[in-house]
């Protein structure tokens, strides 16, 4: 798979994101698959940030640690990011008279790096333009390096300034100027891109948060209440930006508890409502999770992961909230924990989550993470036809409503533990959604028999839920396969990797790498995390020479749940817990290492303690 990478670095707030976004969009329209990745510290301005684009003419959804082009908007980038350049890489910078230190000069020589000083201040002066336009100049020059059509860029920029004619003109002049710049020393420079695949031109460039927001609207969510907390805030912002179009009720609540309660009240009343938070914010919502279990109120919570504990690393990524999601909250009850993996299922899983919540009258916790929330995906337009809205055992028909008895609401003998549900305001017998232990009509009943029956009712749902959940997704050598086809037949599996969430896409890229293409590497991806379906895993495990767990946390939390569920222990783990996502090349080498060791040595590698953390 041919791939090139381009990284823009500078201070937060300097315009890195706008350069990245425009180039990404331009390249996508030209027929490239672009994957955008942002790193930035938890502060408003200043601090070292980056926007990296990994580009291919095939599907790509990972980031490399090594880059082909580095665009440094300030000298910090020259200090901090030089090591990341590949052989023959290009460094584009704007710092006049910059002297590289000795070790960088060595590096430049060794790797035959080409250094381009882009005299942005001179250009601005010449054009009489304000500093903010330096980004346009730079973008245009990068665009020319990529051998892309100048008019495509102009029309892109034109869309932004459609209504501001004067501004547009100046922008166009900057584009011309930047595009035509030629470095006096290096001469014309061009970065070779593979031939485009026009299929990508009509794709969306979308973040996981936007995808999730669209999915939520698509799923019929009519009320959103949230409290800002990175990385769940982009979802709130996106939903709020759309509010005048979607006509949704959007409430920025006074805290997470409030957001969770508002959403619960709205779901109780019968609409679809959503909230999202992160880490300690979810601790605050866990009280409400417990409430909804008792009153059997369907709800969906998005839990956007970032590294903890406490405030932790607000703008970085992790898969550390799985145990929290599966076990937090007072009392025992049925819940469902699922995780999105990319912009495709960030969209697709929103209706799924609401359907599950309503079918079982439970809470569904949808995990995402900072990486998915803020990464930029090249996404095929969504198929909206496949979505069905399933509201479970909700009674709305007036004739059926009339026949209801109060005791239908929490009837402990209901099939699968799921009793009929109808909404306040329905012309029917009424009931109490009772947070104390209660009988079938919702009256408090603390007797031994009733308690036992009702707990069993609420926990019985877990069986139906678990039985109905899809199997984990298996791919072999980077191609999706029917899990059932591989469980008992086919070749022996060289390496079976287990993962979830944002890890999945990176692993797909790794399997499709030139190095590993054609190898019998299987990757089993869990979207449905609790209750946990392990039968496929257990059978695949028997046919695999080596098993490895790939997670972005310290403990190997999915591994812990797997063991809790079926006893299977996976001693070899690729764990990463430094706030960064898995990078393509580092994961690739970790996997290659395992493949090598599998061939040499049938023994499983050492456990958690010594598990190589790839960074």
């Amino acid at each position, binding site marked *: 798979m041919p791939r090139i990478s381009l990284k823009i670095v500078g201070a937060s707030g300097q315009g890195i994101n706008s350069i990245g976004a425009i180039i990404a969009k331009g390249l996508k329209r030209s027929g490239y698959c672009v994957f955008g990745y942002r790193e930035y510290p938890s502060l408003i301005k200043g601090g070292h940030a980056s926007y990296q684009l990994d580009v291919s003419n095939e599907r790509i959804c990972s980031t490399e640690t090594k880059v082909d082009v580095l665009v440094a908007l300030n000298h910090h980038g020259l200090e901090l990011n030089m090591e990341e350049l590949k052989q023959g890489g290009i460094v584009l910078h704007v710092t006049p008279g910059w002297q590289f230190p000795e070790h960088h000069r060595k590096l430049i020589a060794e790797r035959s790096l080409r250094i381009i000083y882009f005299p942005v201040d001179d250009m601005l002066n010449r054009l009489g333009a304000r500093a903010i336009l330096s980004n346009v100049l730079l973008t245009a020059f990068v665009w020319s390096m990529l051998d892309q059509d100048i008019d495509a860029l102009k029309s892109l920029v034109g869309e932004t300034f459609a209504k501001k004619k004067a501004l547009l003109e100046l922008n166009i002049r900057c584009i011309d100027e930047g595009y035509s710049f030629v470095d006096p020393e290096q001469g014309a420079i061009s970065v070779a891109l593979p031939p485009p695949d026009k299929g990508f031109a*009509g794709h969306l460039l979308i973040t996981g948060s936007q995808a999730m927001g669209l999915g939520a609207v698509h799923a019929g969510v009519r009320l959103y209440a949230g409290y800002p907390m990175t990385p769940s805030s982009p979802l709130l912002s996106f939903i709020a930006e759309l509010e005048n179009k979607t006509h949704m009720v959007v409430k920025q609540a006074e805290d997470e508890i409030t957001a969770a309660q508002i959403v619960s*009240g709205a779901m*109780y*009343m019968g609409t679809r409502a959503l909230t999202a938070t992160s880490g300690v914010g979810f601790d605050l919502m866990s009280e409400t999770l417990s409430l909804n279990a008792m*009153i059997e109120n369907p709800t969906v919570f998005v839990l956007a992961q970032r590294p903890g504990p406490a405030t932790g690393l607000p703008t970085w990524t992790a898969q550390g909230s799985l145990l929290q999601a599966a076990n937090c909250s007072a009392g025992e009850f049925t819940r469902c924990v699922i995780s999105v993996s990319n912009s495709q299922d960030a969209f697709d899983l929103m209706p799924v989550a609401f359907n599950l919540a309503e079918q079982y009258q439970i809470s569904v916790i949808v995990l995402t993470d900072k990486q998915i929330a803020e990464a930029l995906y090249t996404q095929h337009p969504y198929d909206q036809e496949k979505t069905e809205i399933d509201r479970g055992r909700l009674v709305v028909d007036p004739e059926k409503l009339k026949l209801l*008895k109060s005791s239908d609401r929490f009837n402990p003998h209901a099939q699968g533990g799921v009793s009929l549900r109808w*909404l*306040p305001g329905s012309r029917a017998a009424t009931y109490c959604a009772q947070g104390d232990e209660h009988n079938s009509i919702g009256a408090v009943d603390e007797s031994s028999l009733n308690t036992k029956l009702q707990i069993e009712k609420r926990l019985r749902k877990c069986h139906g839920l678990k039985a109905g959940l899809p199997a984990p997704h298996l791919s072999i050598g980077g191609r999706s396969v029917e899990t059932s086809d591989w469980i008992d037949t086919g070749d022996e599996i060289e390496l079976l990797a287990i993962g979830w969430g944002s890890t999945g896409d990176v692993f797909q890229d790794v399997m499709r790498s030139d190095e590993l293409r054609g190898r019998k590497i299987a990757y089993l991806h869990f979207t449905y995390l609790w209750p946990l379906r392990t039968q496929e895993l257990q059978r695949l495990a028997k046919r695999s020479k080596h098993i490895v767990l790939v997670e972005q946390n310290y403990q190997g939390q999915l591994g812990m749940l797997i063991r809790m569920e079926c006893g299977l222990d996976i001693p070899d783990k690729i764990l990463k817990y430094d706030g960064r996502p898995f990078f393509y090349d580092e994961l690739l080498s970790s996997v290659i290492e395992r493949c090598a060791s599998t061939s040499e040595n049938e023994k499983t590698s050492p456990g958690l303690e010594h598990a190589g953390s790839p960074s």
Partner: protein
Amino acid sequence: MNIALQTQPPALSDYYSETKCIWCDGCGNYGIWTAVKYSLVELNLYPWQVCLCYDVGCNGNGSDKIEGYRFHGLHGRVIPFAAGAKLANMKVPVIAFGGDGATFSEGIGHLIHGVRSNYPITFVLHNNTNFGLTTGQASSLTPQGQAMNTSPNGIPEHTLASMDLVFSLNPTFVARGFSGDIKLMTRILKAAIQHRGFAFVEMLQACPTYNHFATHEYLLDRYFDANADGHDPGNLQQARALATQVQDRIACGILYQRRDAPDFYSRLIPRQGVETTCVEEVRRYDVSEYWKELV
């Protein structure tokens, strides 16, 4: 119970529940409970038309002693839940009930933001000046000198000036009733339920078991119907004074009402002109229009 097609106007008996009341003898909750039923009936509301949300506490133990769509939630959290319920379905009157403990300790943030948001709900404060259900601890409204369970020396904090606090929040409806006067409470509740915006209704509630200072008799002696005395709820200054000065006599009735302030829902630009409720709007939406600019 099962519902036949009602042809009669709603009657008190429609609100009758088979579950027996369990409050102590002489508890003010009986009176409030009765007044709630009267007010709903007098407003011509059937049980299936209303949503009653209860906090946790002795007051919340009323959740299964009445008919209607009810909710009994978590301690201190009733206001945001009720607000969410209402915003989802503006056609259903939503009344929330909570104790002084819930409202001024655990849930004080919700009260403050509920009032400032001017949610279109009624909130009924059962003020027995203590944590009843957990056996008589001091609440923020317990007088400072009073020894209570867990505060044998009385509380070291200032007693909250709850009405001054509420008035600092720009309320649009403030009323005070007394659990010993069902007629007064009924009048207040009817007005509160009809108010468009957040109606804050304090009910001074006798708790013979744990509140030995503001007893039924104490309150009976001091309370009076300020509206009967000619107080105009439109007069903010006077309302605030009446509400906060309770040393000698305690002004009850509708102390303050502002009718021109739009409620939260009316202030939502995206909902302008939308006739349906969020509940009715649940369906699959085509979102391709929103992703156009991402292409």
